[in-house]
């Protein structure tokens, strides 16, 4: 698919250069119970979602983008 991921360092690059890192969820959970929810209870949104990407075959930077899980559009 023709999906370009905007890397903050390298600009828009082909998605196959990147690794998907899952939903962006806050890691500063107050306790382990809440942290468990972060790991195992994803929101699984249908629509725009904040998510993590890793430019694995590029500059190796992690970053967060908002992608629509239905249309793949990145805002």
């Amino acid at each position: 698919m023709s999906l370009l991921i905007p890397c903050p360092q390298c600009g828009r690059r082909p998605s196959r250069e990147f690794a998907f890192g899952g939903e962006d969820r806050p890691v500063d959970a107050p306790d382990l119970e809440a942290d468990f929810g972060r790991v195992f209870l994803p929101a699984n949104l249908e629509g725009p979602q904040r998510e993590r990407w890793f430019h694995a075959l590029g500059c190796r930077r992690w970053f967060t983008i908002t992608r629509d899980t239905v249309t793949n559009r990145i805002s």
Partner: protein
Amino acid sequence: MTERPASGATGQIRFEGREVSLHEGDTIASALFRAGVRTFSRSLKLHRRRGIYCGTGECPNCLVTVDDVPGSRSCITPALDGMTVRREGGWPSTERDALHVADRLHGLMPVGFLYKTFIHPRSAWPLAERVIRRATGLGPLPGGPADRRVARHLRTDVLVVGAGIAGLSAALEAAAGGRRVVLCEERAIGDGIAPGSTLERIRRLEARARTEPSIEILERHAALGLYEGPVVPLASDRALVQVHPGRLVLATGARERHAVFPGSDLPGVWLGRAAAAMSGLHGVPIGERVVVVATTAEGIEHIRTLARADGSIVAVVSPSMAGELDGDVETIVDARVLEARGRSRVREVVVRSGENSRTIACDALVLSLGTVPRDELARMAIDERVDVVGDAAGDRRCDANDADGIVCLCEDVSTRDLGRAWDEGFRSAEILKRYTTATMGPCQGAMCGLALECFARSMGAAGAAGSHRTTARPPLRPVALETLAASVHEIVDKRTGLHDAHLAAGARLDRSGGWLRPFGYGDRLEEYRAVRERVGLMDVGTLGKFLIAGRDATRLVDRVFATRVDDLRPGRSRYVIALDEGGYVVDDGLLCALGDGAFYLTSTTGGAERMDARLREWTDRFGLHVHLLDRTSELGAVLVAGPLARELLERVTSDRIDGGAIPYPGHGEVIVDSVPCRAVRSGFVGELAFELHHPRSRGPALWESLMRAGASFDIRPHGLDALETLRLEKGHVYLGQDSLPDDTPAKLGLGHAVAMGKPWFVGKSALERLSALPATRRLAGLAFDRAPNDVAELRGAPLMTDGDVVGRVTSAERSPVLDRAIGLGWIREDAASRAPDLRAGPAVARVVPTPFYDPEGSRVRA
């Protein structure tokens, strides 16, 4: 039986033991149909008979094995003299299929059947799996290596996909504007279209395009997808062509609407274009009495085509088309088909007009119900600008339809199955797809995609942005793996700085973890003995090597590793393990504290990139101030191991390397024969050992110096084979070889490397919950009796007791020092205590504590 070649025959194909003669322009399907074949395949799950349906390479019905290539689309594959063709599916044959009983048991195999059945008892699964595999699936894969395919790249101003009227017109227009054009078409231009006004227009445009020098025409090249760039890969029989166009025009046309009603998948039910091509192009009548349902002008054209060759025709037409036909054709206006009936093929159809139903006997039913744009490529263009022209830019509409019938021909998913899945809570197109597997077969939703979309819409599915369509993904067409592999030119193997030294020493090199590494130098036992008795060298420059500095370095490693690290003093090292968020062990390494809060970290060879990604991920997540330097390829490392290791090093360094200066586990900087090194004490092989990490460029000098100084100790280099024995005697775990993806530290005997007292580390919240569960299995040391001479037979062997499988051997080696075969393996917790003796292939295994060798570790600490 053998038929004589008919007059006008252009050759023969061999079909299931008989010869079938060919006529000019035959596809495999038209040749078989002329020879009387009506059942072309058996459906995947219910083993229903399937005949030619779409005729355009879209549906799964006519997939056959051609010259050992399964899944070939017979309706668009030109028949060539000498081809061997056989059908797929069904047992013992496609024609007489005992598994057809599945159709009558449909009620017992509801949607999601495989997810819910065969779960218990577990022991029945291997048998059930064999039966299911026999009962389902397409033809077997050809054996042996495939021919090599050609890969090439093509740059052009304009790529036009599809050479119908719209595509040819677009190509001519672009060429007239001075552009270089590539025009690709899945078939040959005009193929499969019955004679008529459409074909005449195509031929006229084709003639112009063929004489236009700036248009390159690629026939029998199917577009597989659309990627960033844009890049459009095209697959032909022999090649993969990656086209890089400046502009992309999609003229992919439209496909005929798939109909769903009881019996709509019977052989003898045709889509209009397939019927028109068979009768009008190949000259084979499709029936004696044919019912044609036509709602469009194209449908009326098909009726005229069929009327020329076929028997009597009953036309069922929409009111707006009523005046189009002359008196020869019996016409029913404004009716719809309720059902098609018949056992092995259609025998009658039920049509309803107003309040009246009527049954018409027939041997063919042709459906020409309009088209659906073939727009998958266009939908893959998320960021790319594409121009969609012709029928591909048409509308999609849903018809009201509550009839039951087969929606998905590939996977035998019925309307009722969709309804059941809906009732079970699968309430959007995407998850209906995943649960029922509708749209997931060879046709990739070409037929059923619209029906699934319309079902979801009619049920009021929750679709974000009003979308009830599943995502379009490449490949659009079935493609051979060897075609995809054609673009792989070479495999890049990394080499360490000592590569030439290994070659000079006669090493046997092979791939391991992305590197070319020595597995041995000719005498494995002697390499092993050198380490246990004297001193040996090994190139460990492939280890992941990281410098972690900055004011938050300690905070980072504290969170990334489950092991306690905040008390690690400068000059000391510690074995650390990393978990994933599920609490499972994914990587390990050796962490060296450098002073000033900085660390030097080594990781496994194969895990180096993962480790780098992990360190970066958590640095970013927590917003830590860390400087991370991946020094993996910049530094080399040599393992100097054996009881004489220190004596050897003392000959080539004037720095202190005694246990006080560099204790175990610890590290220090030393100059070895003018090469600056970080000497890291290592316990992996179970002897006194130093890893000398050094600038890669100095590796050969260091290696040479050590070999020369060690000559009087009979020093030897050793490879990965000897290392395997050395580490196994110490009971060390190779993550990935001895571990499973869901291994907690406790299951691997690595509980000591976890500090649950830390407030947080990756995987801690999961591990807390997991540790509340009873232990089910663990990795144990194994001692074998009656081991075969080749212990490789033991690797992967199931561990049995009283006929039950209670574990599996993950590693096995013959231990020279213990003079017996030893190993590691999984064992069920209940069996570990209950069964003193386990059967492992031909051998008997006992669970024993590890390490097997030097359990106190005094040799490592020397």
